[in-house]
């Protein structure tokens, strides 16, 4: 946007003034005028962004290199000391590892499910309206509500899952209490919650695909799988990139369910980076270490977004 402005300006002047050479002073005023207007238009969004995104980011960076005994005492510069503590903090490495598995477990599964559901509800079968609604319902519900419901689904003795398993003679696991499966239990719920949301994007994309492509493919005798692989999926790639970025960010950003389901336990088995930041800031009241963790989180998110934009973007056909 910013890059375009001088160019637009030139077009505007040449159009309005024709071949006449503009006086430098007019040029200057108009340029200034034009800029001022643009800046005024940008101002509302920009001031919000600066107040709530950029300034806190800078403050977090600053806070991560300072330390004080308590919030009442003045903070002093300590260099990278907080980061040294971080490297030696076993819980930090645990939550990082957990977050890695959590992202790996939820993102591809959600996307695959979303595509499947979208293809299904896009086909010409009866009751598609109801089906779409059914798939979308989990998305409408607030995460906290969902977690409260699933807490009882997962409960070892009275829970829905284990009662269903008991009917076929299987003793169900302690879904949230067993360190080996607590994180997986969270993943299952997340996928259930997220897939419907991503389905909506795929559904919208599917409906813009031109039917002629498929008609042509049918004439050539292509199988359904081949059509999906060679036509549908490549054409959906822009949507996939969008969904992928969102899903990955959510894997780091969305921890509401941890408050209800496991509180990161047992013994940090299901703890995630953002929840650990919350614990550090509000339970341990250590805003300096929380800022340090936040910086790491920001770096991870920025790098992920960059890699995705640079690498995957090149392989996508935009129409």
């Amino acid at each position, binding site marked *: 946007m910013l890059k375009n402005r001088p160019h637009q300006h030139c077009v505007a002047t040449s159009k309005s003034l024709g071949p006449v050479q503009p006086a430098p002073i007019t040029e200057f005023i108009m340029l200034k005028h034009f800029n001022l207007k643009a800046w005024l238009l940008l101002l509302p969004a920009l001031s919000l962004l600066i107040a709530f995104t950029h300034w806190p980011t800078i403050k977090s960076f600053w806070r991560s290199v300072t330390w004080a005994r308590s919030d009442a005492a003045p903070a002093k510069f300590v260099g990278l000391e907080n980061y040294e503590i971080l490297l030696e903090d076993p819980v930090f490495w645990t939550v990082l590892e957990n977050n890695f598995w959590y992202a790996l477990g939820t993102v591809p599964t959600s996307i695959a499910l979303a595509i499947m559901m979208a293809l299904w509800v896009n086909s010409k079968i009866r009751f598609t309206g109801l089906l779409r609604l059914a798939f979308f319902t989990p998305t409408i519900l607030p995460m906290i509500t969902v977690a409260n419901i699933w807490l*009882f689904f997962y409960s070892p003795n*009275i829970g829905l899952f284990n009662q269903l398993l008991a009917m076929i003679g299987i003793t169900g696991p302690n879904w949230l*209490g067993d360190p080996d499966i607590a994180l997986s239990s969270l993943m299952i719920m997340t996928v259930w919650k997220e897939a419907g949301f991503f389905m909506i994007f795929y559904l919208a994309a599917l409906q813009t695909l031109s039917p002629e492509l498929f008609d042509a493919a049918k004439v050539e005798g292509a199988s359904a799988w081949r059509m999906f692989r060679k036509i549908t999926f490549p054409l959906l790639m822009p949507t996939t990139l969008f969904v992928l970025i969102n899903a990955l960010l959510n894997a780091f950003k969305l921890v509401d369910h941890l408050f209800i389901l496991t*509180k990161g*336990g*047992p*013994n940090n088995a299901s703890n995630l980076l953002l929840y650990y930041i919350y614990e550090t800031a509000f*339970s341990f009241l250590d805003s300096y270490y929380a800022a340090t963790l936040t910086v790491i989180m920001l770096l991870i998110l920025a790098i992920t977004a960059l890699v995705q934009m640079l690498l995957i973007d090149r392989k996508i056909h935009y129409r």
Partner: protein
Amino acid sequence: MNKFSKCLATAGIASILGISTVASADTDLTMYYPVAVGGSLTKIVDGMIEDFESKNPDINVDAIYAGNYNDARVKALAALQSGQPAQLSVMFSIDIHALRNLDAIVAFDDVVSTDAERKWLNSFYPALMENGKADGKTWGVPFQRSTIVMYYNKDMFRAAGLDPEKPPTTWAEFAEMGKKLVKKDSSGNVEQWGAMIPSTGYPYWMFGALTKQNSEVLMNQAGTETYFDKPGVIEALEYWQDLGNKHAIMPSGVIEWGTLRQNFLDGKTAIMWHSTGNLTTVKNKASFDFGVAKLPGNTELGSPTGGGNFYIFKKSSAEEKAAALKLVKFMTSPEQAAHWSKATGYMGVGPGAYETDTLKAYVKEFPPAAVARDQLTHATAELSTHEAGRVRKFLDDAIQAALTGQMSAKEAMTDAQKQATSTLRRYQ
């Protein structure tokens, strides 16, 4: 009536009377409070606040429900830091050191002025004051206080051939009776457990009971030292592990705090250890005959106290502090404490409450209502140290690591002690 409509009404009356100055001498108070056990406790608090306002028309109270203990502290402190007014709050009794380190609260000794008020400050059970005192002053006044008690299903006791009036009083009996109470189906799956002790949410609290029962405490009064790796403490954790593994009267692994009450009400366990704050809900919802007893002991009986205290914030005017004190005095007065105790199951905070007609009649009709109070003679303070959140988490993680079999009790506790010691070093 909420604050806004009151303001409107005041403004309306003022304009009718042609008074040009807006303000009457009203004092506005904002108070945050937590609820840790669920149920309709917010309505009860709101009702008490309304009662207070009708008796003190010059004080307006905005009581804000703020989630569990952790959330309440977060919200109250965030409000304070952003400059929003909050003059008092109910917060975790064990937040005292953190709140003092933040320089957020004042001692009640510095707010009370009359002899009557000083007398009031001494009218509470001493065991409940342990978590509210530091440096010889009182910083927290007990309000929604509890101990852990043992709820048991008398019908199941009868079915297992046990005397429903004789619940277990020792660790050995607890394990023995627990075994008799376990019921399995034909294929060997457990349908009904003997007992459940929750190990999420507040594991350190349950563990405080087990250690006290083994004649150990978890920390010193100043909150600068912990004793997690003492042999008696490790032994207590080993007993907790054994209940799940060796005696098999509890599911092994971690037991969820939030769903435990439902497990008990649905007959999935014959015994549960839980906060007395659940008492009234269990009474209203249990479809079976149940009893409440003191926790069993090993070398002695024991339970930590728990729950929330009133704190008054430093950042408030003298009038506001006086009004806040008035409110705290009202909420903890024998009549209100009795009403609160009956409505929730939390204990009356002073002997006076149990001498009111309300509680006298209630205890007579429903003896379990007095168990928490009777247990106070065996009570100890709840784990409360500097850097409380962090130290608590070291212990919670260690307990969960031991219960899920990731570590032995000894390894887990030695680890936790090492971490706690290094965290607390700055405060010694």
